[in-house]
């Protein structure tokens, strides 16, 4: 199947419980190489959980995850689901960059050291090679001049751009953005979006969870509306926003966040 060859990430019938609550209910999703998928929906709908399941920050209870056609994340022993070996999980994570709502920069390291940390510690690159990469990605997010600054001295937008650079330094095949602008002052949202947009223009595959409808419209190849752990609606931005007018749940949601 030539189409499958193009699929970078495949989620198959993912179900996840938090206690008695079903956070993800039999969710399936294919993401093609270069595709930009934006997931929207009210809080508690399971969008972050879905994103975090991809790189094993959450462990799912049912279903399968395929990355580049190979099943990842779990071993199955006598029908029992076990997390994959730390080495395999670590490899999967190193291939998928993640950007968090609260940046989670390492405060005890400078911007440069933050970015170098992955290549040095995980990929065992030399300091010189890592510094080379770090300079490149910091330039890409427009923060070359802040390379020796600790996170405490950066604005929220700058922090998030360093966090993006940190993820990019691992040269990931897939980027996961978990509400990357939700913790930012409104005037700082733009610089982070522009960084993500330029990354998109380079052909990076992305799954983005966001509340920013305008941004979703602009960047997405596909928009998914999620609620109560299921995909309620999905389509191209054009399809999505026209169906939003007919689907009451989506129009309600959009009116609450606008």
């Amino acid at each position, binding site marked *: 199947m030539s189409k499958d060859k193009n699929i970078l990430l495949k989620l198959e019938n993912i179900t996840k419980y938090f206690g008695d609550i079903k956070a993800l209910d039999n969710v399936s999703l294919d993401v093609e190489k270069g595709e930009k998928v934006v997931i929207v929906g009210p809080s508690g709908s399971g969008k972050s959980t879905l994103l975090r399941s991809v790189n094993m920050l959450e462990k799912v209870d049912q279903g399968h995850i395929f990355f580049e056609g190979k099943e990842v994340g779990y071993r199955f022993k006598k029908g029992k689901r076990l997390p994959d070996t730390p080495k395999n999980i670590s490899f999967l994570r190193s291939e998928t960059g993640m950007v968090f709502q*609260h940046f989670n920069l390492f405060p005890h390291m400078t911007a440069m050291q933050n970015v170098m940390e992955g290549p040095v510690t995980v*990929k065992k690159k030399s300091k010189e090679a890592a510094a080379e990469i770090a300079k490149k990605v910091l330039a890409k997010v427009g923060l070359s001049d802040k390379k020796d600054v600790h996170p405490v001295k950066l604005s929220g937008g700058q922090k998030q751009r360093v966090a993006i650079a940190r993820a990019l330094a691992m040269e990931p095949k897939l980027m996961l953005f978990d509400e990357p602008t939700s913790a930012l002052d409104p005037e700082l949202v733009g610089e982070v979006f522009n960084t993500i947009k330029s990354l998109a223009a380079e052909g990076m595959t992305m799954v983005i969870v966001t509340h920013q409808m305008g941004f979703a419209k602009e960047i997405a190849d596909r928009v998914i509306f999620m609620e109560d752990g299921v995909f309620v609606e999905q389509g191209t931005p054009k399809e999505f926003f026209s169906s939003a007018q007919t689907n009451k749940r989506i129009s309600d949601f959009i009116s609450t966040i606008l």
Partner: protein
Amino acid sequence: MKFVKIILIIAFAVSVSSVLYADNSQVFIKAGNLVASGSFDEAIETLQQIPPPEKGGNTKDYVKAQLKIAKLSHALKNFKTAKKASANAIKADPDNTEAKQFLKSVKRESTPDYILFFTDAVRFLPSLLKGALMTFILVIVTMAVSPVGGLFIALGRISRFKPFSILCWFIIWFFRGTPLLLQLFFIYYGLPALGITLSPIYAALIGLGINYSAYLAEIIRAGIQSIDSGQMEAAKALGMTYSQAMKRIVIPQTYKRLIPPIGNEFIALIKDTALVSTISMVELMRSADRLFNTYFNINVLILAAVIYLLFTTFFTFIFEHMEKRVGIYEQR
């Protein structure tokens, strides 16, 4: 006639000597009466009449008189006369121990307190400092060992490997829950019954090391758990293993938070080392205790307190400096 002459000479000699003798005893009786009536100064003057042996006086009476003068002047707080009189007594009778001791105590009493303190310091410091060096060694070794032990126990406590976690919980429970003194006794006096005999220094270091590891373990655990869970997630998302994330990301961020409470524990440690004096370790407290029991001199204890204070001040300063340096990245 000759016979009468001899009788007269003998009678004269006897009467002269008896008069001389009677003269001194009269002086002592007179002086005694004067003391009884409260006229100390006059009593002293009376006693001064007894001549020194070089002027033909009786050595025994002279020494007796001078000692009495010394004691009376001492009672009158006239230390100068007291010193002079007892020195006179010693000069006349160099073997008189009473006079010697009296002179010593008068000299001590008449010296100003601050000078006395410094002379005592010069006298006692060498052996106190020897003890202080041992205290310093105990403190430094425990400070080096217990954070490592504490980190190990703390990581065990938060480990998901249950047997290890329970073992570490038990260590903390036991060593925080019993007196350090009891633990030291057990290690030094109890372990030989199990065939393990330790020299005092090893027993002391093991006791202090384990006890402080157990205390620090809880501080370190709290420190690790106080770091935002997003840090561990971000590290994992980069592909780090748990131990890499701990070592590179989480633990370095705990340093600033850990220095104040651990510094606090270490100040307590400096004073807790005094407990090992009970298992025949000669350290500062034990040295002070020995000197005090020999000389009953309170300055020994004051000197020991000063040395302890110097230690605690020194380490307080070091910890404050470290806290500032380690937390430099938090300064905007």
